[in-house]
């Protein structure tokens, strides 16, 4: 490394290189795992078609390369992947990259909004609960948070639809936009936003509890630390203590969770995406498993690893920004 790169770039590069073996491991494991599953994509396709004759089935299998030994299939796949070729989705009859790109936006939008809502609301409520620890307010916030967390996501989603779409008629039942309304500009933004309200609410209510509880514990812990006492001895008010002294330090463990949660939320969004018919990666992943659409699933997993690497990188940056003690090396 003769050239002098800014430290952040070196750090980014190092993180990327560290991620490579992880990603390769993931890809190989997933591939072999999926091959263990009974039936293949041709079975799924034929099932969807309502049946087909034997020649047709054999021809499809040869066409998709499924008649080759598993290791040959794996090798072919990995070679292609090395040049970032995700292959062809036999179920969608499109290049996998196209399939993924169509879905990525929705998923990122859904996850970004619901995670930020869960995160923001979680830390605010968590902080409030912690400052009034063991009071009625605390109990109400904590238990309510847990009730949402304890509610199966499909149950919550169906209830939301019943109340807000069917009975009140305020919000659309599902989808990402009003089809054939051809909104443009701000109307389009507003339309998409309206469609995202319920799925976002469902997802964020569920993950709210994680942040809430962690923040609560973290604030209680930090509030007992010496430097908070110092600040108090300086004559600082409660509000000031909270904002300048407690919050930032209490946020550190919560930020770490944010990075770890990302892929969990992607899994959790499967059900929500299915109910609200959101064309996102979660639903696509489910469909790909059920359809044995190897290439698409592998593409999703790959994309997911990339996202997780990026998100973890960003959380590291955020962490370093929040914690002056950390230097990125």
């Amino acid at each position: 490394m003769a050239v002098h790169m800014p430290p952040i770039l070196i750090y980014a590069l190092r993180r990327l290189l560290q991620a490579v073996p992880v990603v390769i491991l993931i890809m190989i494991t997933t591939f072999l795992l999926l091959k263990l599953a009974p039936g293949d994509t041709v079975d799924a396709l034929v099932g969807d078609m309502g049946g087909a004759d034997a020649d047709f089935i054999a021809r499809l299998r040869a066409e998709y390369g499924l008649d080759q030994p598993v290791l040959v299939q794996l090798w072919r796949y990995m070679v292609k992947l090395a040049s970032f070729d995700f292959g062809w989705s036999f179920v969608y009859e499109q290049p996998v990259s196209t399939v993924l790109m169509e879905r990525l936006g929705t998923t990122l939008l859904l996850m970004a909004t619901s995670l930020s809502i869960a995160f923001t609301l979680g830390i605010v409520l968590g902080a409030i609960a912690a400052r009034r620890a063991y009071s009625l307010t605390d109990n109400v916030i904590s238990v309510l948070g847990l009730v949402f967390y304890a509610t199966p996501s499909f149950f919550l989603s169906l209830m939301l639809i019943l109340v807000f779409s069917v009975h009140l008629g305020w919000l659309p039942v599902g989808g990402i936009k009003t089809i054939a309304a051809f909104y443009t500009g701000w109307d389009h933004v507003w339309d998409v936003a309206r469609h995202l309200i319920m799925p976002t609410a469902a997802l964020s209510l569920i993950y709210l509890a994680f942040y809430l509880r962690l923040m609560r514990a973290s604030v209680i812990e930090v509030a007992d630390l010496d430097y908070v006492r110092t600040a108090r001895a300086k004559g600082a008010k409660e509000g000031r203590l909270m904002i300048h002294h407690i919050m930032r330090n209490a946020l550190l463990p919560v930020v770490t969770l944010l990075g770890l949660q990302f892929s969990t939320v992607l899994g959790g969004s499967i059900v929500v995406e299915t109910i609200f018919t959101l064309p996102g990666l979660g639903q696509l992943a489910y469909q790909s498993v059920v359809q044995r659409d190897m290439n698409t699933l592998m593409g999703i997993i790959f994309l997911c690893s990339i996202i997780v690497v990026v998100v973890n990188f960003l959380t590291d940056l955020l962490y370093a920004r929040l914690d002056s003690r950390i230097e990125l090396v």
Partner: protein
Amino acid sequence: MTLADSQQIAPPEPPRYIVFWRRYRRNRAALLGLFLFVLVVLMALSAGLVDPEDPLRRAGPPLTPPFTSWETPLGTDQLGRDVLSGVFYGARISLMIGVVATLVAISIGVVIGALAGYFGGWVDDVLMRITEAFQTIPNFVLLLALVAIMGSKIEWITLAIGIVSWTAPARMVRAEFMSLRHREFVDAARNLGVSNTAIIFREILPNAMPPIVVYASVIMALSILMESALAFLSLGDPNYASWGNMIGQGRAVLRSAPYCSVIPGIAIILTVLSFSLLGEGLNDALNPRQKKT
């Protein structure tokens, strides 16, 4: 007036479980959790008394509303199965799934986390890469894949839930081990010539248990939710009356006979809530650092 006498031993403290209970009961929400938990356990145990027969058998006319028949006090579902006995037997299945999946997840997590945290270095590197790989695959997608492979038998579902849940405990155990392995009592044991295995499992692990126990309650809760999500996607095991299955099927009649899914839904919510509150209480009682009051 004398100096503090280091020879004189303080009067014996009450046994640990009493101290534990005293700390635990300070948290009122945790008491509620314990109450609910005991209730669920009692339900699971008494399922055979409520309905000595198979909860899947036809017990009355289909879709009998609740509180209309003595035979089926909480009504019947689409196939005439008794909702009440389903809820009781479901407690059994849900607890079983929760406990076994948690044991699986914790066991894998403890072994991996302990090795990584204790030895550090390349062992840690390798194990953590594997953990990261697992963590990167969305766990529910992995669960679907495992169920696709192994089929929807309850044993496999439980195992699969355990398998997809081990990464978080592994990371936690690793962190615990990393902090505990530098504690002096570990050095003391090494200094006595105790072997690594004994240090890991006899010296460090018991001290790492409290957070693991607390986290176990989280996994229990998540396991039950995961099973119900699988059932929602029609991938549950229909040979058993699990709450997830009941909701999954009741969802078809959600609008006309909401009780079919709402009753097991409430059962799930309360059970998961009880695990979470229990975990809170355990946390307060086992990690007294956070105590207030």
